[in-house]
C-alpha cells in the first residue's frame, strides 16, 4: 500500500449542514500536500475524520494502511487548528507527557525535547510554565509536540495562523525538514502563498466538495491566463503598436507598462519577440497564475 491517506466517497453532516460531501482523496507516502479552501469549506472536519477524532457518516477511509487513524496514532503528528496546551504545566513535562503518549522510549525523550526546542529557538523554555509563553511561542511548543515522535504522517491544520513572518519562515523550514526526513505532510491553509511555496500538490475543497486535486505546476499550466507582463524601456512610450500584433486581444494598463492579453490558442513564446520589436521592453515576462487567482476563480464560480 503506497498511500498515506485514502478517502473514498466520505460524507459528514452536522444536523442539516453537509460539512463534507463525497470526498475522494489519495495522498501518496512522502508527499507534501496542501489542503486549501475558504473558511467553512470543510477542511478541519476532513482532517478530524482522518485523525479519527470525528467519524464519517459514510464512505471509506484509510490512514497509513489502517482502517482508522486510532490504529496508527503513534505514527501521526497533528497540530490542530484550535491550539491547546496545559497552561499550568511546564514546557518540559508537557512535551514529556506528549512524547510518552506517542510511544517515544523514555530514554530518548530528554534529548528529543532539547533538540526540538532548540530547533524552534526555545532552548531555555523547558522549565517555563506554558501559560507564561506568548501565543506564538506556545504554538512552537505545540509544533515540537507534534513532531517529537518523528511521525510518518504530519497533519497541520492552519499551522501559520497567528505567527509573525520570522516564526512563519522558521516553521516553514521545519515542515520542509520533516518532509525531507521522509514524512508525508498534509497541511491546511486558506493563505494561498503558503501552499504555493511549500506544496507539490494541492487539494482544494469548497462547500464540502473537492474542486481541485492537482500538482501545483499542472494547476498553473491549466489555469494559464494567457497574459504577458510588459514594461517598456521608455516609460512614456506609445504602446499602441502592440495592438497591431494579431495574437493580441487586449492591453491592460499597469503602473509601469501593461498586461498583454493574448487570444485563445496563441503561443506566448512566439509572440514575445514580436512584442519586443514593436516596443523596446525593459521587462517582458509570461504571467503565471497564482493559487490565489485559481482559488478566487473556483470559489467565485
Amino acid at each position: 500500500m503506497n498511500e498515506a491517506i485514502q478517502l473514498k466517497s466520505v460524507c459528514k453532516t452536522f444536523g442539516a449542514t453537509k460539512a463534507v460531501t463525497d470526498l475522494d482523496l489519495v495522498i501518496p507516502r512522502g508527499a507534501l500536500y496542501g489542503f486549501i479552501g475558504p473558511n467553512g469549506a470543510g477542511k478541519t472536519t476532513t482532517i478530524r475524520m482522518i485523525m479519527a477524532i470525528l467519524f464519517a457518516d459514510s464512505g471509506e477511509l484509510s490512514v497509513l494502511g489502517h482502517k482508522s487513524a486510532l490504529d496508527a496514532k503513534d505514527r501521526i503528528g497533528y497540530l490542530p487548528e484550535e491550539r491547546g496546551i496545559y497552561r499550568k504545566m511546564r514546557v518540559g513535562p508537557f512535551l514529556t507527557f506528549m512524547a510518552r503518549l506517542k510511544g517515544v522510549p523514555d530514554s530518548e525523550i530528554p534529548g528529543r525535547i532539547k533538540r526540538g526546542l532548540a530547533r524552534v529557538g526555545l532552548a531555555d523554555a523547558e522549565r517555563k510554565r506554558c501559560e507564561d509563553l506568548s501565543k506564538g511561542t506556545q504554538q512552537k511548543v505545540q509544533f515540537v509536540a507534534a513532531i517529537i515522535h518523528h511521525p510518518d504522517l504530519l497533519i497541520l491544520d492552519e499551522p501559520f495562523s497567528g505567527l509573525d513572518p520570522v516564526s512563519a519562515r522558521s516553521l516553514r523550514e521545519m515542515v520542509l525538514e520533516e518532509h525531507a526526513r521522509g514524512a508525508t505532510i498534509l497541511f491546511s491553509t486558506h493563505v494561498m502563498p503558503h501552499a504555493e511555496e511549500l506544496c507539490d500538490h494541492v487539494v482544494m475543497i469548497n462547500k464540502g466538495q473537492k474542486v481541485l486535486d492537482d500538482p501545483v505546476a499542472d494547476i498553473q499550466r491549466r489555469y494559464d491566463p494567457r497574459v504577458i507582463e510588459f514594461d517598456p524601456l521608455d516609460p512614456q512610450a506609445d504602446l499602441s503598436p502592440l495592438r497591431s500584433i494579431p495574437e493580441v486581444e487586449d492591453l491592460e494598463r499597469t503602473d509601469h507598462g501593461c498586461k498583454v492579453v493574448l487570444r485563445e490558442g496563441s503561443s506566448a513564446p512566439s509572440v514575445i519577440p514580436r512584442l519586443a520589436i514593436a516596443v523596446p521592453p525593459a521587462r517582458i515576462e509570461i504571467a503565471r497564475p497564482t493559487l490565489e487567482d485559481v482559488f478566487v476563480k473556483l470559489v467565485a464560480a
Partner: protein
Amino acid sequence: MKKILLVAGREFVATVSTKAFIIGLLIMPMMIGVSIVVFPRLLNPRNYRTQGEVAVIDPNGRAIADIRTAFSQERIAERREATARQVMNQAPPEVKELAASRATPQMAAAVASATAGSDLRLIERPANADVQKEKSWLLEPGEIRHLALVVVHDDAVRSKDGKSYGSYDAYVPANADDRAMNEVQSAMQEALVNARTREQGIDRATAESLVKVERGKLVTVTKDSERNTIRGINGILPIFFVILMFMGVMTGGQSLLTSTVEEKSTRVMEVLLSALSPMELLAGKIVGQFGVSLIVLGLYIGLGGALLISFALFGLINPWLLPYLGIFFVLSYLTYGSLMVSVGAVVNDMREAQSLMMPLMLLLTFPFWVWFPISQNPNSAFATAISFVPPVNSFAMLLRLTSTSPPPWWQVWASIGVGVVGVVVAVWFASKVFKIGLLMYGKPPNVATLIRWARQA
C-alpha cells in the same frame, strides 16, 4: 492500557499538586479539630454566667426559704458540677482519663469561674404582691437584667387533694435566655421538692435514694473482648460512613468535572485526541481521579482510625464494614464520576456546568436527607426500596449496614449487583456523551439532548 495509565498519572499529579487540593484536604480535619476543641468550650454550660434578677412571689410562704437556698450561688455551682459529672460518667474510661489528665486545670478554672461568677440575684416580693403590677417590673429598663417573675402556686408544697401538687408560673421578657430559664427551673424544682418532703416529714436524701435508679452499665460483648457500650455512637456511626464516602466521591467527581472543562476550554482536548481515543482519555481521567479520591478517603479513614485507637475505641467499628465501604465507594465513584465527566465534556465553562450539575448534586446529597429515617428504621419498606435504586443505593445500603439492624446479606449483595449495573449504564452513557461532546462548542445541551446523544452514538 499504557496510555490510560499515562493520562491517569497526569490527572492524579495535576490534581494533588495544586494548593487548592492540599488546602481542601486539610480543611476537613481542621474543622473537625475545631469542632472538638472549640465548640464544647463555647457550648459548655458551666461557662455560661447567669446574670440578672429573678423575682419570686410565694403567696403562702411555705417554699420561700427553700427557694432562697436553691438560688444561692453555691447551690447553682453544685448543680452544674453534678450535671457535668453525670455527663462524664457516661463517657468511656479513656475520655474520662483524658479529661482528668489534660483538662483538669481548665475545668477547675471553669468551675471556679462559674461558681464565683454566677450573678443571679433573687428578689423576694411580698406574699400578697399584685402579680399584674409585678409583671411590669420585667419590662423596666436597667443595668441589671430582669430575668423572670416566679409565682409559686398555692398548692405547690401542700397538696389540696392529697394526690397532686401545684407548681409555679414564670413570667419572662421577650428575649429570655433558655439557659437562664433552665437555671430557674432546676432551682425551683430543688426548692419545691425540699419544701414538700419537709412538709411530709420525709428525709429528702432517703426519698431520693428510694426513687433513683442509676442507668445500668451497658457492656458490649464481642467474640474477643468486652467493652463499655457508648450510647449514641451507634446512631451516629452510619452518617460518619456516609460523610466519608461523600467526601471521596465528591472530591474525585468534582476534579473530573473541572479538569474536563479546563481541557475543553483551553482546547487541549483535540491535542489529546490526536494521541489516544476518547475511551482511553475517559478511562484515564476516571482512574486518575479515583487515585485522588482514594487519597482523600484513605487520609480521613486513617485520621478517624488513629483517633479511635488513641481513645481505645477502635472496637466500635466492625472491621468487616471497611471492605463494604470500599465496595460501595467504588460503585458510587464510578457512577457519579462518569456522570460528572460527561457533564464536563458538554459544557464550555464551569458556569454552564452548574445547571447540569444540579440533578447530580441532588442525588449526591439525597442520603443526608434520608439519613435519619433510615437510621431509625433501617429495614423499613422505604429504606429497603432505595437500597436497590442506583445511584443512591450505595449510600442507602451503607447507612443500613452500619446501623443497629443490618439488612440480610442477600439484600447487601443484591444492592451491590444493582450498583454494578448502575456503573455499567453510567459508564456507557458517559462514553457516548463524552465522545460527542468533547469537540462541541456553543450552547450546551440540556438533559434531553444528552439522552438523545447517548441513544444515537
